[in-house]
């Protein structure tokens, strides 16, 4: 992974997770993501469509961008890999660097914070950073 891709993952929490549906198509949902110790961590309701898709077909693609309000745009990072459903008591490790952008109303996860569990109705998924692609505006690369 390039230093630029790493920096985007460290700073950005605005993610979009693409999953395979039961019908065999692709769908992509917005989601907050947290880069911790070589993986992306995502928290969602177990009953959500994206969670059910990830459990049924763990291969996912996650796009992370650093920008806040407005349309998602480059630079960004594409992470492809297998989403692992973590046990109910799993917590992401503490952040090495606090993210530069957090959606207003969302706090960065702190180990033990029950808001991320809601009595087991929400769970963490972890996607190791095995396949990482930097997404840049081609005009910016020229």
């Amino acid at each position, binding site marked *: 992974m390039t230093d630029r891709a790493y920096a985007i993952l460290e700073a950005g929490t*605005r993610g*979009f997770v*693409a*999953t*395979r549906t039961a019908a*065999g*198509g*692709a*769908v*992509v*949902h*917005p989601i*907050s993501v947290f880069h911790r110790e070589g993986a992306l961590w995502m*928290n969602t309701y177990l009953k959500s469509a994206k969670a059910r898709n990830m459990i049924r*077909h763990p*291969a*996912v*693609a*996650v*796009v992370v*961008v650093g920008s*806040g*309000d*407005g*349309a*998602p*745009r*480059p630079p*960004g990072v*594409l992470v*492809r890999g297998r989403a692992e459903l973590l046990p109910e008591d799993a917590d992401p490790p503490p952040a090495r660097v606090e993210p530069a952008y957090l*959606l*207003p*109303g*969302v*706090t960065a996860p702190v180990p033990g914070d029950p*808001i*991320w569990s*809601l009595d087991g109705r*929400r769970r963490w998924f972890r996607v190791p950073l095995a396949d990482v692609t930097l*997404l*840049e*505006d*081609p005009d910016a*690369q020229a």
Partner: protein
Amino acid sequence: MPRHDVAMTPEEVAAFVQDEEGGVLAHLDEHGDPTAGLVTSRGLGTGILLAAADGRPLPPDGTPVCVAYEREPSYSGVRAALVLGVLGGGRLEPERTISFDFAKIPAPTREDDH
């Protein structure tokens, strides 16, 4: 905790998507696994004109795709529309949409945080 209908109306979805300048496009690769990229977007009649924004080509014509559009002034104000259809000549005619507008949830909604 009651569930609230947070879906946008078809008119709201159309207006939202037509106004957006970019999104995230997902499709399945040759192995049947999802992949995704950043696209620019422009409303064109009943459809959407898409172009790759990240230096990678769009998937071939005839590929079923999903494009996510999102605005997020705050968690309680997130608006998003997922547009599904088949790509042709860089154009996407929506076949199905999934949408949500968290501003339609009556406050307070502490349980739904995050």
